[in-house]
C-alpha cells in the first residue's frame, strides 16, 4: 500500500518485523540473551546474596534502619517483614525477560538467512538453550513452581510440574553438549571468554543432576540423563576441558590484589561476566549486588564500603581448620585482621565477619577501585564476574558421582587448600559435603548443597539461636527449623504477580 501523510517509522529502532534476518541479527540477538542473563540480579535480591543468607553461612545484615526483608529471608518468616511480599519481583520479571529473549531467538532461527555460515546455527542455538536452562535452573530451585514457557506467550500460564521444567533444562543442556565444539580452555580465543562452552554445559548438567536427584529424591534426571551419563560429562570436562586448579586459593579472588590471577582464569568453567560500564541511563553491565556484601558505610583498605548485607556467621569462620588457607581468603575478619570498624551503629546483625570473595575494593585513599576504573559509583560500578562454576566444583561433583578417581579429585582440592599442611582424608559423601562448604563458602552454592540433602537436613543445619549486634546492641537472633520445613526451602512467589495473574499463580507453602 502507498505511504500516506500519517505513516511514520522509527529511525533509531528496528521492530520485530524487520529484525531476525541476517546472521549478524542472530548474533546481536544472542548477545541480547547474554545481556538478559547479566541483568537478572541488577535489581531485587541477587541469588549470590540471597542464597548465602538462606544458608547457614550468613545472616541478613544490612543497615540498622533498613526494612526487614533480608531478615525475612534469613528466618524464612513472612511475619518478619509483612510489607515485603514482592521481595523477588524484580528478579522474577528479569528472569522471564531473559527467557523471552531466548525463546524469541530460538523461534526465529529458521527465518534467518544463514547462507554459507550454516555451522553457526547449532552453536547459537546451543548457547541460547544453555542460557535458558541456566535461568530456569535458578528459578526452579528458588521458587519450586514456575510457569514454563519454551516459546513467547502473553497468556496467563499456570505453574508447571517441576519435572517438566527439569526435562526442558536437561534437554537444553544435552543439546548444548552435543552441538558445542570441544575446544579446550587453552585453545579458546581470549576474546571469546564468557561464551558458553561444551564444558560449561557438561558441568551445569552435573550440577542439575545432583540437585534434582537430591532435592526430589530421584535416581535420574527427568529420564534424560542417568547417573553414569552425568559422571561421564564431568569426566569429559576433567579429561578434555583443559582446566586446572589455580595454585593458591587466595589468588582466585580480587582481594589478593597484585596476586589475583584475574578473571577467566584456568579454573573458571562458567561465569556471568560484569564490567564497570553501568550507569543511570540504562546501561546495566555491572555487578549491582556486590555492594550488598561490603562493610556498612565504611572502608578499610583494601575492602570497600557497602551496605553490610549478609553478614558472615561466626560459625563459618570457626568451621575452618586454622591451617586451611581458605579461611582468610574467604572471610574478612574485623578483629583478627585488626580493622578499625566503627560503624556498628549503622550495621544490623553485626558479627565481625564479612564476605571477602565478593567484597568491593578500594585503594589506599578509600577511592573505589570500580570508580577508579571508570565506574559511575561504588554501587553499580562493581565489575567482578560471578564465577558460577569453578573447576574445583567439577572435581568434587565427579567425586560425589562415584568417579573411580574420586580420592584423587578430592585430594587435589584439599591439597591446594592446605598446601604443606595437607594430610589426606578418605573420600566419602559427608566428607565431600563438608569440603564443599569450605571450598565454596560465600559463592552462592552452599544453600543448594544443603537443600539437595533434603529439606529436613537443611532446616536442622541452618536453624540456630545466637546473639548479634543491631546498631551496636546485642540482640537475640533465632532461625527456627520449623519455618524452613514449612516452606520446603522455597521462596515466596512475588505476591503482585499472583494478583496480576488473578490467582492462576499459586503461592508456595509457608508464605
Amino acid at each position: 500500500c502507498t505511504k500516506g501523510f500519517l505513516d511514520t517509522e522509527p529511525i533509531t529502532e528496528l521492530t520485530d518485523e524487520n529484525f531476525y534476518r541476517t546472521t549478524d541479527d542472530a548474533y546481536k540477538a544472542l548477545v541480547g540473551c547474554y545481556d538478559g542473563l547479566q541483568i537478572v540480579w541488577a535489581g531485587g535480591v541477587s541469588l549470590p546474596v540471597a542464597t548465602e543468607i538462606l544458608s547457614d553461612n550468613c545472616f541478613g545484615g544490612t543497615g540498622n534502619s533498613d526494612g526487614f526483608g533480608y531478615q525475612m529471608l534469613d528466618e524464612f518468616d513472612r511475619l518478619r517483614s509483612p510489607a515485603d511480599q514482592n521481595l523477588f519481583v524484580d528478579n522474577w520479571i528479569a528472569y522471564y525477560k531473559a527467557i523471552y529473549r531466548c525463546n524469541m531467538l530460538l523461534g526465529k532461527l529458521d527465518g534467518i538467512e544463514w547462507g554459507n555460515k550454516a555451522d553457526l546455527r547449532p552453536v547459537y542455538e546451543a548457547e541460547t538453550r544453555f542460557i535458558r536452562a541456566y535461568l530456569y535452573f535458578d528459578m526452579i530451585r528458588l521458587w519450586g513452581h514456575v510457569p514454563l514457557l519454551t516459546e513467547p506467550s502473553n497468556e496467563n500460564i499456570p505453574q508447571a510440574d517441576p519435572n517438566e521444567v527439569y526435562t526442558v533444562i536437561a534437554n537444553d543442556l544435552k543439546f548444548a553438549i552435543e552441538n558445542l565444539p570441544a575446544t579446550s580452555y587453552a585453545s579458546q580465543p581470549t576474546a571469546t571468554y564468557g561464551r558458553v562452552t561444551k564444558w560449561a554445559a557438561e558441568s551445569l548438567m552435573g550440577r542439575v543432576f545432583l540437585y534434582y536427584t537430591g532435592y526430589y529424591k530421584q535416581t535420574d534426571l527427568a529420564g534424560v540423563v542417568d547417573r553414569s551419563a552425568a559422571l561421564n560429562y564431568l569426566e569429559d570436562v576433567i579429561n578434555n576441558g583443559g582446566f586446572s586448579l589455580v595454585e593458591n586459593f587466595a589468588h582466585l579472588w580480587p582481594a589478593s590484589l597484585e596476586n589475583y590471577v584475574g578473571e577467566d582464569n584456568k579454573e573458571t568453567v562458567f561465569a556471568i561476566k560484569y564490567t564497570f560500564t553501568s550507569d543511570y541511563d540504562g546501561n546495566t553491565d555491572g555487578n549491582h549486588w556486590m555492594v550488598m556484601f561490603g562493610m556498612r558505610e565504611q572502608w578499610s583498605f583494601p575492602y570497600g564500603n557497602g551496605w553490610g548485607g549478609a553478614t558472615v556467621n561466626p560459625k563459618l569462620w570457626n568451621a575452618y581448620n586454622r591451617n586451611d588457607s581458605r579461611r582468610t581468603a574467604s572471610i574478612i575478619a574485623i578483629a583478627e585482621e585488626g580493622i578499625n570498624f566503627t560503624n556498628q551503629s549503622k550495621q544490623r546483625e553485626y558479627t565481625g565477619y564479612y564476605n571477602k570473595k565478593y567484597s568491593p575494593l578500594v585503594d589506599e585513599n578509600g577511592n573505589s577501585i570500580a570508580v577508579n576504573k571508570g565506574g559511575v559509583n561504588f554501587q553499580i560500578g562493581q565489575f567482578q564476574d560471578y564465577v558460577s562454576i569453578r573447576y574445583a566444583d567439577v572435581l568434587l561433583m565427579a567425586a560425589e558421582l562415584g568417579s573411580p578417581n574420586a580420592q584423587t579429585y578430592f585430594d587435589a582440592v584439599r591439597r591446594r587448600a592446605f598446601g604443606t599442611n595437607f594430610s589426606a582424608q578418605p573420600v566419602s559423601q559427608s566428607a565431600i559435603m563438608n569440603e564443599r562448604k569450605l571450598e565454596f563458602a560465600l559463592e552462592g552454592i552452599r544453600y543448594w548443597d544443603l537443600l539437595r540433602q533434603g529439606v529436613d537436613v537443611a532446616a536442622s543445619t541452618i536453624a540456630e539461636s545466637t546473639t548479634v549486634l543491631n546498631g551496636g546492641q546485642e540482640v537475640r537472633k533465632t532461625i527456627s527449623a520449623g519455618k524452613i520445613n514449612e516452606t520446603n526451602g522455597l521462596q515466596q512467589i512475588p505476591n503482585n504477580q499472583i494478583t496480576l495473574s488473578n490467582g492462576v499463580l499459586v503461592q508456595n507453602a509457608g508464605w
Partner: protein
Amino acid sequence: QQAIRGKVVSTEDRLPIPGVSVKIKGTAQGISTDENGNFSINANVGQSLIFSYIGMQEKEVKLTSAAPINVALEPTTGNLDEVVVVGYGVQQKKLITGASVQVKGDDIQKQSTTNALQALQGQTPGVQISSTSGQPGESMRVIIRGVGTIANASPLYVVDGVLTNDISYLNPNDIASMDVLKDAASAAIYGSQAANGVILVTTKTGKSDQPAQISVDTYTGLQKLARKIDMLNAKQYAIIMNEGAINAGKVPYFTNEEITNLGEGTMWMDEMFKDNALTQNYSLSAQGGSTKSTYSTSFAYTSQEGIVGGKSLSNYERFNYRINSEHNLYNDIIRLGEHLTFTYLNSNGIGVGNQYNNSLRGAFNTSPLVPMYDEEGNFYDNTNSSWNTGEANPYATMYYGNQNDRNSQRLFGDVYLIVEPMKGLRFRTSLGLDYNVNESRSFTPIYRLSAYSFNDFSRINQNMGKNKSLLWDNLLSYTFDIKDDHHFEAMVGSSAFQYDGSSIWGANINAVFNDLEHAWLSNATNANDAAQMTLRGAPDDADKRMSYFGRLNYNYKGTYLLNATFRADGSSRFARGNRWGYFPSISAGWVISNEAFAESTKNWLDFFKLRASWGQVGNQRIDAFQFMSPVTFLNTNYIFGNQEGVLTPGAYPSRLSNVNLKWETSQQTNIGFDARLLQNRLDIAFDWYDKITKDWLIQVPVLATAGADGPFINGGDVKNTGVELALNYHDHIGEFNYSVGLNGTYNKNKVGSIPTADGIIHGANNLLFANSGEFYRAQNGFPIGYFWGYKTNGIFQTEDEVNSYRNANGTLIQPSAQPGDVRYVDVNGDGQIGETDKTMIGNPNPDFTYGFSITANYKGFDLAIQASGVAGNQLVQSYRNHTDPYSNYTTAILDRWHGPGSSNTTPRITEDARNWTNFSDLYIHDGDFLRVSTITLGYDFGKIIKKNYLRKVRLFASVLNAFTFTKYDGMDPEIGYAEGFASGVDLGYYPRPRTFMIGTNITF
C-alpha cells in the same frame, strides 16, 4: 442654539474614542465623534448630552456653559456585546452556549508576573494553577476541571490559532486576552488535543484607524523567601541525636560539656537562600493602524534571579520580540497578516526534581555540625569527620552539581490570508510555525565533600537540539440570516500538523579549564577512556496529524441558541486501523430574559441565559510507535573476553505491541447559566459539569511471563464532577469606582475501571526517601493519586497502653511497640497491623479552589488585590531521609514524645526510624491555603502633567505573594510538583518568593 465642541476619551488609556454617539437628551438630534474623538453639536445651555459607545458606560453631561467640554468614558466590565475568542473564531459573549471564561490582558499584566499562567491564578473558576517550583522559569501545573488522567493532564494552548503545549515563552504584556474553554462543547473543535481543556491566547493587534500609541512598561523588584523552615541548630541536634542513642540503649554521642560548646553550627537554610534576588522587566511596545494596515509590535526584556543559590545558580532571562500586522490587499476582500514572536531564553537552574535531584533537600538532611568552609575558605571536605563522614555540605553540592547554562530560541506564529468575496463568506488559510532551538552545557569540577559526594574527573556536557512544528489550517465560513430572525453561521475546516526535530549530545572528561565558561567539548582532553565519553545524536520521533472539522451555529432572535461541532482527527501515533478519532459536541442556550414573560423581572434582572452542552474530546499523548514492538539496541551489551569495559552490542525485542491502541476520550456534560443583575452591576456565571475521561492510554503491568514490557492499552477512567460559580460586582460612589470578583469551584474526583486484576495502578517506590514504599495509587472508587497508608491514633504513652492494645483474641496488636511509638489503627479488624490496614489517608486533589479580586480607582489612584486558594486537599511532607539516623530534623521534632504526656502526635526519636518507615498519616498535612498573590497601588501622573503627547504616566508599587494564610508548616503550601500522578508531595520544595516591586507604565 450654539455649537458645543468637545472631545471624548477613554478613562482607561486617555485615548480619544472615534465614533462615540453624542445625543441631546430628549431629542432625536445626534452626531458621532470624529477620528480624533472630537465632536461639535448645536445645543442649548441647560440641555444634557448623552455619550454612548459599545463597551463603554453611557454618560450624561449637563451643559452649564457653551465652553468646550472634555468627556471621559469608563469601559464597562464584561459587556455582553463584547466578543470572546472561541476555537477557530470569535463569538459574541451573549450567544455563547459552552462554558468558557475570558481574562483580559490587563488583568494579566496587572499581576507583574514573569509567567503569564501564573497571572491567571485565581482569576477563573475551574482552573487550578500552581507552580511546579518557585525557581524562575519553571513551568506551571494547570488543571482544568480536575485531574483527568494519570498521564500529562495539562491543557492545550492555542496562541493566535497555533497549537502548542508550552506558552512560557510569552511576554505577559503581549497578551490581549486568554480564553479558557472548559467544557467539551467549547473544546471539541480542537478534538484530539482537547481532553484536558484548551486555553486560547490572543496577542495584541492594532486597530484600524488607530493613532500610533507607544508604551513603556517597566518594573523592578526584589525577592526574598516568604517563610523559612527552621532546622535544628547544632546544640538542639546533638541533644536529639543523644536522645536517639539513649532510646536505642546506647551511650549518648555527645557529653553535656560538648553540647554546651557547640553553639548554633551551620544553619543550612540560611546558606541556601539569598535575599534581595532581583526581578525586572522592561517592555517597549507600539501599535496603531491606518485604513490599509494595522500593526502591533513590542520588545521586552525580563529577568528573574532565583532565591535559592542566587543569580549564579538559578536565573532566568528572556528577550521577546513580537510583530503582529495585517494588511488590506484589496478592497477589504483580501487581507494578509501575521503574528510572530521571537523569544530568546537564557537560564540556569538548580535541581528541583525528585529526592535525588533536589538541591534544596540536602539542606534539610545535613547536620549543622558540618562547617560551610575550611580554614582556607574552600568548601569543607567532610570525609574525615569524626561525626558522620557521609554527609556533605549541601550548598557546595548544589554549587558543584549545577554549573550549567541553557539557552533556547523560539520563533512562534503564523502568516495568514483572509478572503471575503461577499458579505458573510470568509475563507482563511494560515501557516503556523513553532521553531525551537536549544543549547545547553554543564560542567562538573573535581571535588570532594564527603565519603559519598565527590567527583574524580572534571566533566563537560554539551547538548544541542532543534525542532519545528508546522500547522496548516484552512477555514471556510459562511454567515447568513433567513428572514432576519434566523441567524446561521457555518464553518468547515481542515488542519494538518507535522513535527520533526533532532538533537545531538556529548560528554567527556578531563577539562583543560576549570570553569563553566570553558565547558566545551573541545576543551575535554580524554581520548582513551571510551567509557567516559558520550557522543550521541538522534532524530525526534516524527509526529503527524490530519484533521477535518465543522461547526454550525444557529440562533433565533438571539434567544434560542444552538451550536454543533464535529471533528475528525487522524494521528500517526496509532496503527492504521485505529488512527482516526471522531469528536462530536452539541450545545444549546436559551436567553430567558428576552422572553415576553420575563418583562416583569426587567427592573432587577438584565440578562439571563440558560446553557447546556455535551461533547467528546480526545487525547493522544503517548510516545510514537507504541503500537509496534521495537527491537532495542540501546544499553544491550555483554562483555566477552577479559578486557574490562569492552562491550559487545546486542539487541532484543523490548515491548509487546498493541495495534488496537486508540484515542483516549473525555466526555463532558455541562449545564449552567449566565446572569446580569441590578442594572448591570452584578454578573453571575454558574456551571455544573460531569466529565468522564475514559480509555486512558496507560502502560499497565503485564504478567512477567510475557517477558517484555507491557504495551500501552486503553483502560481506566476518572470522573470529575463539580460546580463553578463566578460573581462580579462593580459600582461607583462618586468618582470612586470599585469592583469585587469572587469565584469558586467544587470538584470531586473518582477513578473507575482500572483494567488490572486488583483495580489499582500502583504508585512508584523510593519517592519520599531512599527505599521508601508505595504511598499513592489510582484505584477504582478513589480519587486519582490518593495517599495510601496507615491511619494512626496517637502515641503510646505508657507500657500499659501498649499492653492494652489487644485484639478480640487478647493478643497484642503491636507487640514490638514501646511507649513513644505510634499507635496504628487496625482498620480491617484482623487483630494485626499489616498491608491490608493501609487505606486512604489523604487526597491531593482539592475539593475547593477559589479566588477573589478587588479593584478600585479614585481620580488618578488605582488599587488591585488578587487572591487565590484551595481547600480540602492534603500534602505529603517528607524532608528527612529516614534511612540515615543522623539526618537533621526540623524544629517540629522538639515537640516529640519524650515521656508520658509529652506528645500525642510526634513519636519518640528512634535511630531506626521505625515510626516513619511505614507510610502513615504522620506524613499527611492539610494543604488548605489562601494566598493574597498581588497587591498593587498605582497613581497616574498623566492627570497632573497634562502634556498632550503623554497619555499616561503611571507609577505603581506591588507586593507579589504578599500573604499566605495556611496551617501548613512548610515553606510554601502551593506545591504543583508532581511525580508521575503523585501530586502534592513536598520533598523540599523550592518556595515561591515574596516580591516587592515598583514599576511604571508610560503611554505616549
